[in-house]
């Protein structure tokens, strides 16, 4: 007799899912498709891919596990989440690696055939103990599905070989997860049709697997609960999904295109910054010139050369590479040429944790050059924020004739989220310092390359401009002529001018605002960089509960917005969570004598929302 099973619908504000499996299991594609579908549905989402650290880890092993984490919701989502509500694992290794981060009582969807004797052994389960049967998972809701078998069964009529059929497993899983979250598979069906245009049998097999997974949820008696996450109330507009490195690249293209500049990006491959080079090298039709230099130093120097010739020059790297570029960045400072330097930070020092995130290069950005070499520093808050911040860095570089350093990190570089992209006509204009045409710019027919405006900004005269021939260099220069000068008074004056030049930028950037909470709250959580998401989430939750806390997030680190000190003084206490040992705290204490307390985390992992909440609670009576 058939049992009638009542299917219940649980409503959630936000859900964290991790898809995990072998690199060959199509995990990134599965996660990407789920992301697209809920985005179209209207959820806010934040995603983070987790690739195996080893390039070619053996199949089924712990080091070969690939993951795609996402958090989606009907509320604003700022991070890919901390602990998972749902863990989808294609094999035993994927479970073992990720179980610790599953919420108590969370859902596990396991591919049964990934837990055979061979896979259990590869995942180092002792004596082939099987977690699916030994009650070790009793605290979770486990759905072990024989995905391989059911996919094969569904595709038994297909002309495809067994290997190709097995490759459709991920679509079965995706179909099932769609069912579970009350999402329609239509967008993915369209995607598959398009992707396999030239291989209709492969397309049909994948679609069949997807639909089979979807219907399996409906018909199977084991599953009684589905989730529903309503659409979020996002501001109206046109959206796309974007990751941090892509957004950096697009910002550079946009800044160049919108302002008739020739973009030149020079870089040496380094994790996690290489994708900026990859992305930019695609856009030849926009006239983008990319240059894979022989080393980090050459990349920085080539960018300086490009800037001298009038190009919008940029270079990107990670901490170790920025260290190598240091001398050249000092040259860029003394030459006073515009360029953008992007540091996608990773765990250090030295090679450190190349695939893990950290924000410990702030001091390097501020002071990591010889001599007094002030440079504007901006930091990005999230993947989509990379666009606005890098565009802004380009603006400051050109309008203030200075190298500008942008701090991103591995978490932002690879994380993705929906982005309400601007219309090109709304992008701000970048005003090049004009070519001086008055007599003051010349002395006996010789052009004076270092005449300045009230902000100490000199004109940008690219090589090739008639009548303006001039020499610049790394030796200390005379005030106006740029000729070499060892005069003590002159040097002190030039050092002061370069410092003032950077300080003057404070008059050309927005005032600091409060992201969450109100002025004068008992506690201010001050942040910069990728800690933004976790802090914003934590403070939002606590403010909603009536806790007297506020969040202030910095984009401009050098110079600070001119009202920052005044704003910070309104709070009783300031804490600064940082993925370093307290580098922004050093700056805040030094600059304002405000007794900011550091909350440090140095694990190569971002802060969780709970960690931030705990840090806040610790400071409040």
């Amino acid at each position, binding site marked *: 007799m058939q049992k009638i099973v009542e299917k219940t619908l649980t409503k959630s504000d936000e859900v964290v899912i991790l898809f995990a499996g072998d690199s060959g299991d199509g995990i990134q594609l599965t996660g990407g498709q789920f992301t*697209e579908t809920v*985005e*179209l549905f209207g959820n806010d989402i934040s995603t983070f891919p987790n690739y195996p650290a080893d390039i070619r880890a053996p199949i089924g092993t712990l080091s070969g596990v690939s993951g795609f984490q996402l958090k989606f919701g009907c509320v604003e989502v700022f991070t890919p989440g901390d602990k998972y509500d749902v863990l989808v694992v294609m094999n035993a290794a994927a479970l073992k690696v990720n179980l610790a981060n599953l919420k108590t009582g969370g859902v596990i969807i396991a591919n049964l055939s990934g837990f055979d004797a061979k896979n259990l052994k590869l995942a180092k389960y002792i004596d082939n103990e099987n977690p699916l049967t030994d009650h070790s998972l009793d605290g979770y809701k486990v759905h072990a599905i024989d995905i391989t078998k059911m996919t094969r069964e569904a595709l038994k009529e297909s002309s495809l070989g067994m290997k190709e059929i097995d490759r459709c497993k991920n679509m079965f899983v995706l179909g099932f997860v769609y069912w579970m979250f009350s999402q329609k598979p239509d967008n993915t069906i369209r995607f598959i049709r398009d992707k396999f245009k030239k291989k209709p049998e492969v397309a049909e097999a994948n679609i069949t697997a997807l639909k089979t997974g979807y219907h399996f949820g409906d018909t199977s008696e084991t599953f009684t609960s589905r989730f529903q996450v309503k659409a979020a109330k*996002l501001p*109206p*507009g*046109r*959206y*796309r*999904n*974007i990751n941090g490195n892509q957004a950096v690249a*697009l910002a550079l293209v*946009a800044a160049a*295109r*919108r302002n*008739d500049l020739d973009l*030149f990006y*020079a870089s040496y491959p380094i994790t996690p910054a290489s994708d900026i080079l990859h992305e930019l090298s695609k*856009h*030849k*039709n*926009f*006239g*983008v*010139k990319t*240059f894979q*230099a*022989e*080393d980090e*130093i*050459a*990349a920085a*120097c*080539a*960018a*300086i*050369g*490009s*800037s*001298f*010739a009038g*190009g919008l*020059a940029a270079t990107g790297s990670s901490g170790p590479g920025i260290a190598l570029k240091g001398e*050249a960045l000092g*040259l860029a400072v003394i*030459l006073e040429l515009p360029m953008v330097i992007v540091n996608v930070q990773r765990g250090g020092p030295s090679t450190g944790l190349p695939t893990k995130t950290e924000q410990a290069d702030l001091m390097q950005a501020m002071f990591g050059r010889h001599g007094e070499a002030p440079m504007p520093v901006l930091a990005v808050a999230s993947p989509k924020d990379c666009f606005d911040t890098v565009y802004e860095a380009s603006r400051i570089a050109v309008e203030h004739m200075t190298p500008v350093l942008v701090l991103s990190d591995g978490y932002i570089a690879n994380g993705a989220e929906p982005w309400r*992209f601007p219309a*090109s006509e709304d992008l701000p204009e970048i005003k090049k310092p004009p070519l001086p045409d008055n007599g003051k710019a010349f002395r006996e027919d010789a052009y004076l390359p270092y005449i300045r405006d009230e902000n100490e900004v000199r004109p940008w005269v690219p*090589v*090739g401009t*008639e*009548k303006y*021939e*001039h*020499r*610049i*260099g*790394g*030796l200390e220069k005379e005030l106006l002529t740029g000729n*070499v000068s060892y005069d003590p008074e002159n040097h002190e004056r030039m050092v002061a001018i370069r410092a003032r030049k950077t300080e003057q930028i404070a008059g050309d950037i927005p005032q600091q605002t409060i992201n969450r909470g109100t002025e004068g709250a008992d506690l201010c959580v001050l942040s910069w960089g990728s800690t933004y998401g976790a802090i914003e989430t934590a403070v939002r939750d606590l403010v909603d509960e009536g806790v007297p806390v506020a969040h202030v997030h910095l984009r401009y680190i050098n110079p600070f917005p001119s009202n920052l000190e005044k704003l910070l003084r309104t709070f009783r206490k300031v804490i600064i969570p940082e993925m370093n040992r307290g580098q922004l705290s050093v700056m805040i204490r030094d600059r304002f004598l405000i007794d900011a307390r550091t909350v440090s985390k140095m694990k190569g992992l971002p802060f969780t929302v709970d960690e931030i909440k705990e840090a806040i609670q610790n400071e409040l009576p």
Partner: protein
Amino acid sequence: MIAPKIKKKTADVNGLTPKDYASDQDIRWCPGCGDYSILKQVQSVLPEFGLPREKTVFISGIGCSSRYPYYMNTYGMHGIHGRAIAIASGVKATNPELDVWVITGDGDSLSIGGNHLIHGLRKNFDLNILLFNNEIYGLTKGQYSPTSPTGKVTKSTPFGSVDTPFNPVALALGAEGSFVARGIDRNPVQLRDILKAAHAHKGASLVEVYQNCNVFNDKAFDLFTNKETKDDHVINLETGKPLTFGGGTRGIILDGFTPQAVDLEKVSENDCWIHDPSDKIKASILARFFDYTVVRGDLPRPFGIFYQHERPTYEEVLVQQIKDHSHEKADLDTLLSGANPWEIK
């Protein structure tokens, strides 16, 4: 924006003289330094290229020779140690129509900047690289350099240097240089010819110039400049001509792969090696007229163009790739929206 290749004009078109290329800065090299001659030869050939002055730019690194850009009334940049070629690459990539010169020394380009030299030659940007080789560190007051002979006694090597010197011409050939030449400060006529050829060459031209540092390494190249010895030790390379030296009394023949100096009274000039700078293997053998110990006979030091072979320059292909894609729509809004945008109302 892609700049059209500039047509080279004739000398009288821009009407400039060598003096017009000199800046108002006092030259700070030691009196008697070989750098003066090189500066003068460059200033005297520049007007012949007929380029507007603003199209010429000199980029240098650090060292005595690298002060050079300050003395030129063109665009110029005095960069950082060893990095001139990297800086120049960026200049050329952004504006390929510029005439870009790199001024560097043996320490600058063969020690601290060695990486940029080899890759710059390989990448083949159209740069004219003048390597002032004085076999010593002058600016830092006399330490041995990567071209100083083994055993060289200097401030930093009181008991003689240990390492084997670079052979810059051989290094340049090994690094796929497309134009490799050697000149010397004391032979201005030849140097000017080399400079003109280097400028005419499309691609990276490496010109090693022996330059006397009369303060820290005087007479390092005496063998090649001294009246008494130079005839026997210098061989000037002329395309299509037999390799002869010693006032026409001696010549070079190739015995298999081995070059030999012969007496032209015994061997006919017609049997001598005919110089062909397009032949890379022969250029490589010529480059080895350096380490006297490994080849038979006393081989003279060659001066002139060792090798020249044009291949596409880096900036040419860079611009070509952009041209190849110029028919594709470059709409910024399409780029910003990506392939899968959606609308929230």
